[in-house]
């Protein structure tokens, strides 16, 4: 049992209602005992001093949240997520950073990413499983090249309220959103360039697989600074075969989807190519692109590529980028070191 009875009124009131883990144990019985012990001290009948009703009311709400969380199967301690599955098994997921995303929360560890998806989106979760489990590769050589960039499912867990997808990652991979935040929302164009190269390479694979990912952005993609590679581990909830009806999409995706794709609502690689352009603009500091030319955020050929519409073929886009845009923007290719690791971010 946690030593809850030693805490002052100020300390108790300072615990956010969404974080009962900071007060109670992650076990329903123990939490109940702890609440009883607290009530014995803070119930207005026991201590009618001024301010006590507020403390007890806060404690009651914290306890209600704790009960709800424990019933739902998720208990989030600093750096450790406890997941209680509906089959009774308990899992401990160690993480460095938790982030909200549009379907729930993601937990980034050194060797895994856990996506906790609200059960209201079970159909999208199931869609991700089916797509990820059937990602094609023509031969072992292609598999060796592309698989490190694709999600490798470690485990999927069902809790009372959520579904949890745990995918493998290597410690060098960093969530692009965290990288962007680290650099205060603006990266050097030379780094953005290699990130775009890597993402376009992924888009070529998606086109080969006849898929549209539909959520290719800073919350779905991870990058490896030492290897100049990226991995698309998140966002597969919305992936569909090209030409097939889309089930759903993040609202942000629809900001950049070609108008005719929105009208038809079918999977189309141009959505991913437009999202890569939007991401490139975002990494340079202005997703609208309106300020980039004025601020000379990148060489003009790169800015033109980022602002103009995407073609219909990922391969054509990749070739244009590699053969024309990169050379015209930066001259001869060379490795530009980005000195950044998980320890810098988390």
């Amino acid at each position: 049992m946690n030593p809850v009875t030693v805490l002052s009124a100020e300390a108790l009131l300072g615990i956010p209602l969404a974080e009962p883990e900071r007060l109670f144990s992650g076990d329903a019985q123990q939490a109940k005992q702890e609440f009883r012990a607290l009530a014995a001290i803070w119930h207005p009948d026991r201590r009618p001093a001024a301010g006590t009703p507020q403390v007890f009311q806060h404690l009651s709400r914290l306890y209600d949240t704790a009960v709800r969380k424990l019933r739902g199967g998720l208990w989030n301690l600093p750096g450790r997520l406890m997941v209680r599955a509906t089959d009774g098994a308990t899992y401990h997921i160690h993480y460095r950073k938790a982030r909200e995303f549009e379907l729930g929360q993601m937990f980034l560890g050194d060797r895994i990413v856990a996506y906790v998806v609200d059960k209201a989106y079970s159909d999208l979760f199931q869609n991700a499983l089916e797509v990820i489990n059937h990602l094609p590769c023509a031969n072992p050589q292609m598999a060796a090249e592309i698989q490190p960039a694709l999600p490798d499912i470690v485990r999927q867990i069902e809790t009372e309220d959520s579904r949890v997808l745990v995918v493998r990652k290597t410690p060098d991979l960093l969530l692009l959103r965290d990288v962007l935040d680290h650099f205060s929302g603006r990266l050097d164009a030379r780094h953005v360039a290699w990130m775009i190269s890597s993402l376009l390479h992924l888009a070529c694979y998606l086109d080969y697989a006849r898929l549209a990912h539909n959520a290719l952005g800073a919350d779905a993609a991870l990058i490896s600074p030492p290897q100049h590679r990226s991995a698309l581990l998140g966002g597969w909830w919305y992936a569909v075969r090209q030409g097939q009806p889309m089930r759903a999409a993040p609202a942000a995706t629809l900001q950049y989807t070609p108008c005719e794709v929105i009208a038809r609502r079918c999977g189309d690689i141009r959505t991913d190519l437009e999202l890569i352009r939007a991401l490139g603009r975002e990494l340079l500091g202005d997703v609208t692109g309106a300020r980039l030319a004025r601020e000379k955020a990148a060489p003009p050929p790169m800015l033109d590529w980022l602002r103009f519409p995407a073609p219909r073929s990922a391969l054509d886009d990749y070739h244009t980028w590699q053969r024309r845009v990169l050379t015209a923007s930066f001259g001869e290719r060379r490795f530009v070191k980005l000195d950044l690791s998980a320890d810098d971010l988390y």
Partner: protein
Amino acid sequence: MGTARWDATDWSAYAASTTHKTTDAVFAARAIDPELNPLGVALRESRDSALNPASTAIIVGLDVTGSMGMIADTLARQGLGTMVEEILARQPVSDPHILIAGIGDVLYDRAPLQVTQFEADIRIARQLEKLWLEKGGGGNACESYTLPWYFAALHTSIDCFEKRGQKGYLFTVGDEEPPADLPAAAIARFLGDRVARDFDSRELLTLVSRQYHIFHVIVEEGSHARHDPHGVRNRWTDLLGQRVISLSDHRKLAEVIVSTIEVNEGRDRDRVIKSWSGKTAVVVRRAVGALQPAPTRNVGVVRF
């Protein structure tokens, strides 16, 4: 630009001064005015200011080919005042900054695009009357309605979007069909941009839609629209879907634009229609009767 505020008195005086003038007298230019020439223009800017702290960029592109000069003429004499004053009174968007564009045909005309500044006061009218009504166009069944799309996408900078993520509005107005594409050579010739390839209209729509709500207003009284009404409507609908607005009386363009903005911003369509009286309500009903509001969410998930 757009630092001043609309004054109804200024407008009344201006409108009165046009009463006894012919169209040729109001629109006296016989060549493109250098101030309206888009060649080499880096940016037209719509900026917030003390008088217009939450500006909204609105572009109205008028077909000035053939007989379509009547649209500009009516706007200069009457419509402009109605448009600005109704937007200010109804407030579907805040602090309108209006840029007027003249549209022709890149294949046949000497000035297929003319662009004023974004303005908020009587200077809108002063610049509108500088338009050259070239009265050109050709026999290709389309005008270069997508040239202002390109210009808006790459040569405007608007605070409503850059500061607040709120799209501006772009209306093109005319009686012909949309072009299939915009040649790189035309972009270079009339705007000065060296681009690597031609752009088809769908690509340009994607490009400009990042920053603007796009609508096309079909002038049903125009000769081409009367000759092939279904063809014109179908080709525009194929490109823009429900964002094609039918204008049965060109004198009601301002009311139709204001109503379109209101519905797009989520106001009840029937109430918007009923807010106008008599014949105006009939024209507005025909124009926006099928229009749906724009999706307002930019976070979370959208299900199909």
